[in-house]
């Protein structure tokens, strides 16, 4: 599998004008100067609490949220698009190449359309197929890949369970033959047994169809099992980014460490309370000075309150944005 880059974002910013009146130009930056690279054929994980900007970043990469600063490019070997300025026919073409799977399979499917019509709609809207026979053949092919029976295609969504509905959503996203899929909390609403089934299906489809995934989730254990590379966001900023194994073996940012320790352990004797985060994510309208995380960080010192740390790459592909990560790492080793 080629490891070329499919998506490159450099200092990507998504800002919303929330000023009250003509002269008030207050801007809320939901995503603030984020740089990521997504390799072709990879499963890229994006984690963070609600309000961290992970969904907005995913949408910006699909050109569904306004890019107000920085660059983002999409290169799949056939075409190369600059996402910030994409429009017209090129934008229509990009819609075929990049698709979204939503969180809630109960809200994402129209109750008045049959499963066949739901899956066929993108083909008809985008004009990808010429005849009804061609459409049906394509729908059947993709439905089979997503483990839906022919008999299922004639029914309406209400007849299906959560896991089956999510498979219908996946089929709809894949029917136009995209290369890039943003899966936004796609297993969060499912029961654990179904969640495992849908994750296995996504992995299988990735192999069979050569897809690249941006997998947005707040559940670190799910991300650990599915993704090759993980980026952690906090209040619109990227705070840490590393290959999955490296990140889970030795997280560098205090926020990532806190996220790990917040996961309820399956061991009843391990009812520790170490390193739990206090407070909540601050409002993006009233962002802290210096490091955005200093208000909740157990390791914050004076410099954290005044100067914002930059994302550093120490050369091992494990990027982190924290003033004290080296110091904390050494303290951990000696302890």
């Amino acid at each position, binding site marked *: 599998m080629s490891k070329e880059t499919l998506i490159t974002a450099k200092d990507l910013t998504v800002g919303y004008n929330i000023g009250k009146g003509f002269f008030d130009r207050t801007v809320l930056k939901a995503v603030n100067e984020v740089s990521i690279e997504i390799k072709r054929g990879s499963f890229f994980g994006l984690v963070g*609490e*609600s309000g961290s900007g992970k969904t907005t970043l995913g949408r910006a990469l699909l050109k569904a949220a306004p890019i107000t600063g920085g660059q983002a490019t999409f290169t799949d070997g056939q075409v190369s698009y600059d996402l910030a300025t994409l429009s017209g026919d090129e934008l229509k073409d990009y819609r075929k190449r990049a698709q979204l799977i939503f969180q809630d399979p109960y809200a994402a499917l129209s109750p008045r359309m049959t499963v066949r019509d739901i899956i066929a709609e993108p083909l008809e809207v985008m004009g990808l197929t010429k005849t009804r026979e061609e459409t049906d053949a394509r729908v059947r092919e993709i439905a089979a890949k997503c483990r839906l029976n022919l008999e299922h295609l004639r029914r309406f969504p209400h007849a299906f*369970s*959560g*896991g*089956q509905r999510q498979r219908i959503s996946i089929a709809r996203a894949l029917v136009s033959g995209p290369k890039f899929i943003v899966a936004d909390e796609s297993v969060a609403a499912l*029961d*654990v*047994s*179904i*969640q*495992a*089934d849908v*994750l*296995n299906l996504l992995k299988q489809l990735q192999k069979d169809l050569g897809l690249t995934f941006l997998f947005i989730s*707040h*559940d*670190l*254990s*799910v991300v*650990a*099992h599915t993704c090759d590379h993980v980026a952690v966001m906090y209040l619109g900023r990227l705070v840490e980014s590393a290959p*999955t*194994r490296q990140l*889970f073996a030795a997280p560098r940012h205090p926020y990532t460490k*806190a*996220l790990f*320790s*917040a*996961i*309820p*352990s*399956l*061991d*009843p*004797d391990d*009812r520790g*309370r170490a390193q*739990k*985060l*206090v407070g*909540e994510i601050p409002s993006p309208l009233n962002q802290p000075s210096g490091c955005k995380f200093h208000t909740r960080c157990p390791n914050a010192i004076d410099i954290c309150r005044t100067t914002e740390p930059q994302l550093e790459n120490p050369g091992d592909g494990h990027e982190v944005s924290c003033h004290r990560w080296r110091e904390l790492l050494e303290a951990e080793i000696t302890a």
Partner: protein
Amino acid sequence: MTSLIDVENLTLSFRTDEGLVTAVEDVSFSLKKGEVMGLVGESGSGKSVTAKALMQLNPGNAVYDPKSKITLHAEGREVDVLSLKKAAELKIVRGGAISMIFQEPMASFAPAITIGNQMVEQLLIHTDMTKARAKDVSVEMLDRVGISDPAKRFDQYVFELSGGMRQRAMIAMALSTNPKLLIADEPTTALDVTIQAQVIDLMKDLVNEFHMGIIFITHDLGVIAQTADKVCVMYLGRIVEEGPVREVIRNPKHPYTRGLIAALPRFDDLDAPLTPVPGDIPSPLERPTGCVFHTRCREIIGDVCKRDLPENRWVDPTHRVACHLHAKMEAAR
């Protein structure tokens, strides 16, 4: 320790256009004072319906089997919950001795009434406090659950609070009447992991402080492992396994419990494949014969699973399982 609530042979169906649909079948358990019981299962397993039956909160089309019996031991007397009919009698289970926390706090608070007024209202109904005293108690309770600036929050509306704050306010409201039993229906599912950890810690503190019984409904076994003393695993309206939390998680006896644990992504082994429980939970209209789990069971041992309902067997004095596999092992011994 004395028991707080006893549920015996609870069987509940709903009258629908398609006929009687069984939601809960032959469920029995009892809970002691100060004990935390986890109720685990997939969506559709009947865990919420079971909990709501304790407060008679199920809708009017619910039909209770005459064998069903729920006994609440509170305020020095025994209350036969299912025989209560009038609203005045029901007060003891609705907000009196039993309180409930729901999954979605936004949907459980009235949007156009301040949080404070809602808290005062229920105190006036359930206790003989004066209005001024009720306000003091409410503010104190908001402070106790870790809400900053409680006097200000008292006059705010629910949309002004964040998700974690709403859930804290919900807990404060549920506990202000000093219930003997708290039912928490997926209280942390809608929250971020960091906030979930805070809410779990808060609930643990409150159990120690108020010494009430808690029924904790969730599908997350990790949350159960962190909070509960004992666990009941439900599938399609039946309790398939019950036991102390350590036993059930470390040494699960029922294939369904084993399946739920195998489906969880684990941190200690990132390469371990995720093993889903095969298939979907069957529609309650098409309840399988015999063991309700046989259509999805990996360890099915033959026709006996399809034909006969497995009996409860006690593996040890506190751990029971309803599975033919276990009966077979016992017979072989």
